[in-house]
């Protein structure tokens, strides 16, 4: 029935696109007078060549999974949530408040509480745009953009004036108590007697992210709410016909979306920095847009895309750290990957389809 085998569509197309993106990146590297082979080696080795590299790659991946899922869930409801950045930042505030307010005896207790705090704050930050969209028709794209700016201002105020320990220059909260520090993946591996990724930030949150992928998959494709979200996203009149309330779906989808974005904070704020800093999100909210769209709005795709971006981030970081290649090159490589695998994918797919058609004709 299909124009080309499914495996080719799912595997071959992205692979060729990726190769194209890297080929163009190589040209850019050549153009700035550096060696592409060297750069590739540093990136791959730095990100995937050792448990150390993986420890970072998985840390970034975890961030991107959350923001990617956030964009994805909203997208299924036909809502374009550009506010992941702000929601994740406010999620960090939730984590900080939870962890600083109470004396947590053990991380296993602190983690669920902080996760609730993060999700709750992130969700709240998404609630206002959602409500305005559902009730007042204010376009969610504008309101979420605005809420990113407002979140930055709010966080700045809170950190500088309320949470900052006196005498500290750093607009950051106090460090969280040691009892709330999350186990790093390296420590967990050590528990099994394996020396893996020492001193890397990847932590137990990675498993939370993987679980979130599964749960979001269940939510979207196995629950009634997910069914309603998808239906509403495809056709509002049909949703009304079926008795699906637009207000309820808009608000629920955005709450879940904001909650997921907020959850990122347990990785970067609780798991890595162990205190709340200004600009802790570092653009992961925007990367989430690319991750969701490239992952074809499917949790598994989001996982893979997040891994790809984790690799790019870590590999690129290595590049910036250990070579003379400026770190902006990584941004360019990211851009090319997004462009080729996400927007120009048909450029690869169309000739492939023709190729498969020709092959089939020959075979038949």
């Amino acid at each position, binding site marked *: 029935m299909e124009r080309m085998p499914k495996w080719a569509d799912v595997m071959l197309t992205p692979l060729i696109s990726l190769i194209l993106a890297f080929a163009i990146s190589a040209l850019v590297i050549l153009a700035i007078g550096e060696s592409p082979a060297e750069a590739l080696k540093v990136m791959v080795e730095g990100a995937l060549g050792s448990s150390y590299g993986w420890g*970072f790659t998985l*840390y*970034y991946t975890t961030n991107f999974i959350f923001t990617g899922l956030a964009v994805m869930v909203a997208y299924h409801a036909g809502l374009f949530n550009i506010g992941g950045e702000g929601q994740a930042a406010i999620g960090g505030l939730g984590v900080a408040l939870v962890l600083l307010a109470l004396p947590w005896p053990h991380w296993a207790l602190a983690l669920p509480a902080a996760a609730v705090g993060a999700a709750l704050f992130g969700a709240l930050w998404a609630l206002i745009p959602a409500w305005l969209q559902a009730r007042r028709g204010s376009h969610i794209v504008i309101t979420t953009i605005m809420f990113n*700016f407002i979140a*930055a*201002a709010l*966080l*700045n105020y809170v950190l*500088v*004036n309320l949470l*900052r320990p*006196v*005498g*500290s*220059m*750093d*607009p*950051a909260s106090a*460090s969280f108590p040691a009892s709330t520090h999350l186990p790093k993946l390296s420590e967990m591996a050590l528990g099994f007697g394996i020396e893996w990724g020492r*001193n*890397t*930030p990847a932590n137990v949150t990675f498993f939370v992210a993987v679980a979130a992928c599964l749960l979001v998959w269940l939510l979207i494709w196995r629950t009634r709410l997910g069914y309603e979200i998808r239906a509403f996203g495809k056709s509002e009149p049909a949703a009304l016909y079926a008795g699906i309330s637009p207000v309820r779906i808009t608000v629920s989808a955005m709450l879940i979306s904001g909650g997921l974005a907020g959850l990122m904070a347990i990785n*970067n704020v609780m798991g*890595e*920095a162990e*205190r709340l*800093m*200004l*600009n*802790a999100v*570092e653009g992961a909210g925007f990367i989430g847009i690319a991750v969701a769209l490239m992952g074809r709005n499917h949790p598994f795709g989001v996982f893979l895309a997040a891994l790809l971006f984790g690799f790019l*981030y870590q590999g*690129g*970081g290595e590049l*910036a*750290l*250990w070579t003379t290649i*400026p*770190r902006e090159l*990584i941004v360019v490589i990211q851009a090319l990957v997004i462009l080729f695998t996400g927007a120009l994918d048909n450029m690869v797919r169309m000739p492939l389809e023709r190729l498969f058609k020709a092959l089939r004709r020959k075979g038949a």
Partner: protein
Amino acid sequence: DPALIFDLGGKFDKSFNEAAYNGAERWKAETGGSYKELEMQSEAQREQALRRLAQSGANPIVMTGFAFGEVLDKIALDYPDTKFVIIDMVVEQPNVQSVVFTEEQGSYLAGVAAAKASKSGTVGFIGGMDIPLIHKFECGYAQGFKAANPQGKVIINYTGTTPAAWNDPVKGSELLRAQVSQGADVVYAAAGGTGIGVLQAAADAGVLSIGVDSNQNHLHPGKVLTSMVKGVDNSVYEAFKAGADVEPGVRIMDLISGGVSLAMDDNNKPLISDEIAAAIDAATKGIESGEIKVHDYMTDNSCPV
């Protein structure tokens, strides 16, 4: 080999990262030595960068920015044979030298100069991102200005609340114009790349500006009153020169030690009248002798003026 790690703003931030870079380059040019430099991409890399450098045997490792404080405090003891130098932050570990600058003193002098150079009695301050460190500049400046002109007025603006605030010359120039229209005729910019726009707009509008961190007088000769220079370059230079023998402990780079100063060169010579020079001199002496106490915003998060 020594090593230098830049903060997230990157080595060409028109601010203290760039000054650190210049210090390292000077050392390189003078000694012919080589050094490692690192630019980070994200917060999570701080620890990674420090550890990897320490493991690679770099010594001393110099880093710019208060944001390294936490991480350094945590890992310094893992590498007892390595010396670390941190700029703009105090980390109390036996193998760490902390270099802090009394920006409030330098800014105080800038305030005095501004007061004397101002004809309208109104001056401006434009900060980059709204964070305590920049308030420290603002507060010193305001104190110096008020000391020289108790009736005068300081208009204060911050560019924004996100890192974008460091790179928005358009907004910088607009803020300057807003201040000029309120009567300001000398404006002090502590705003990284945004400051470029402030200085430019000031030159266009025919008012004086004061640069920050490194000597920016040359950017618009005859139009930049002076620059509040923070000797980050010297600190890096000296640390590199001392090599593994860097003295641990806190180094306070103040007016006396020449850590902060006002830049005087041919570019601003015509602007510095004798009266201004005398006032700056007097204030310098006062601070050095302890007669004038410049309040540090960081000690209590507030500014007396």
